[in-house]
């Protein structure tokens, strides 16, 4: 009797500790969001969101940076999503295990480990200089795409592989082609996972500074970019600039910019969550 009481006590203590640890992981994210909300909240106004910066960026808004980040994210999605999902389908559904696929997999894993500034230099060399796309939205989007690809490919491949093999066998045995099996059974099942991977990848692209530093980001532009061959301002780079390059910068504007960037990224997260839970609710098994 005494022994079992003791065991229960140990268990209660253990679980309390684990719960505490789990709660502690929430603290940083809540801390960051609250701190930035408090510091940057007062800077947010319609004029801040929709105006151009002036007076050496110490005054005015960040509209061009918001639009720029939107364009860059969109551009990245246009290149990386079709390529990434197609590569994942190839790897998960068509490729047989041989030297070539192992090489592709190895490349993807290593691509994910490369520091983002190296992508920036690579983009500068390939897209800006060699292909003569110049410092432009196109060059920056392509650079971000390469950086995003491994995330999209590996999460999508994972999602495809999680679909039970028996579904494929049954579909084939009912006379479907492999492509019909993928389109009608496998892709719909894997879609929530793929969407999550895509948005996670694009989130990272939206928040990165280093890859766009040399390939598409501008310090200051008096007007919005008109074509994909124009350079653009972007939120993360703008934040970097006003935090380090401009003396006597009002800190509200810095935190206001950070707040908008975080809202942008968390907003994408929210969209991903909504899409995923909708898809899950519709799932018929």
């Amino acid at each position: 009797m005494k022994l079992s009481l003791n065991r229960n006590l140990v268990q209660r203590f253990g679980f309390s500790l684990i719960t505490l640890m789990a709660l502690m992981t929430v603290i940083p994210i809540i801390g960051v969001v609250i701190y930035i909300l408090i510091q940057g909240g007062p800077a947010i106004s319609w004029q801040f969101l929709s105006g151009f910066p002036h007076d050496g960026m110490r005054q005015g808004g960040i509209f061009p940076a918001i639009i720029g980040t939107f364009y860059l994210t969109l551009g990245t999605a246009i290149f990386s999503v079709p390529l990434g999902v197609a590569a994942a389908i190839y790897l998960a559904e068509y490729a047989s295990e041989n030297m070539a696929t192992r090489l592709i997999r190895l490349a993807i894993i290593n691509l994910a480990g490369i520091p983002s500034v190296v992508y920036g230099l690579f983009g500068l060399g390939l897209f800006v200089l060699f292909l003569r796309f110049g410092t432009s939205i196109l060059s920056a989007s392509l650079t971000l795409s390469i950086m995003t690809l491994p995330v999209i490919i590996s999460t999508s491949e994972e999602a495809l592989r999680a679909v039970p093999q028996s579904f494929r066998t049954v579909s084939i045995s009912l006379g479907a082609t492999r492509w019909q099996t993928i389109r009608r059974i496998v892709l719909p099942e894997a879609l929530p996972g793929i969407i999550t991977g895509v948005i996670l990848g694009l989130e990272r692209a939206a928040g990165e500074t280093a890859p766009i530093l040399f390939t598409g980001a501008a310090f200051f532009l008096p007007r919005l970019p008109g074509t994909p061959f124009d350079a653009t301002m972007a939120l993360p780079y703008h934040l970097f600039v006003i935090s380090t390059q401009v003396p006597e910068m009002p800190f509200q504007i810095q935190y206001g910019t950070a707040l908008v960037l975080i809202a942008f990224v968390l907003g994408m997260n929210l969209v991903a969550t909504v899409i995923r839970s909708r898809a899950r609710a519709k799932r018929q098994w």
Partner: protein
Amino acid sequence: MTNKIVVETLTLQYSDGAESLRNISMDIREHAITVLFGPAGGGKSSLLRCINRLNDLTEVRTLKGRILLDGENILDPKIDVIGLRRRVGMVFARPVVLPLTIRGNLTYGLEVMGEKRKSKLDEAVERSLKQAALWDEVNDRLNDPAIALSGGQQQRLCLARSLALEPEVILLDEPTSGLDPISTGKVEASLQELKKHYTIVLVPHSVQQAARTADFAAFFLQGELVEYSEGKGIFTTPKEKRTEDYVTGRFG
């Protein structure tokens, strides 16, 4: 009665060295139940999977011999495999319902072949469910997710799903291994009804089931066809010592 399927000197080896078939020759009669029985790893499932070319999904090292379906060699790489799978349906050991509605499962095979007419699809749904003795249980909830059905119902749905394609041959790989005796009884009763219109090849999950259902029975042991005969004789007076050992329960 004519031979629906003729297997001629079929030899099969998988790349990983697993289960294989050695020089199998046998005739499978039309409108009858032919059971393939024997201990696990004997090659029964492999033979089934050859008959509708599901083996294409597996890495095969050697495949020799022929399987003739109505005189046409279905192992010929040039044949229309999709068309073959429409003629030869398959039901697996564990019921695998596709992540669709009950109706969606039944119409899937027809839809991938391009059938869009609702009247045709409705007709196939009702006919196949009645043939698989499931119509009375599910006709009021055809648009529910198929996964909501019980295990026994799911397996009959899988049977119905094959029947919806109006195949000529139905291959069943231990279709009742996961089912309770009542569901098993329903499936076996359906099979007796179905053999009037279809050619059935069944891998039973026990010798008892083999003896209950067989019109023809083939005993497989380690990739070899040991004995093959008409009727229940093989279960009562087997000719081969190895068959006798197995059916009397001395091994397996």
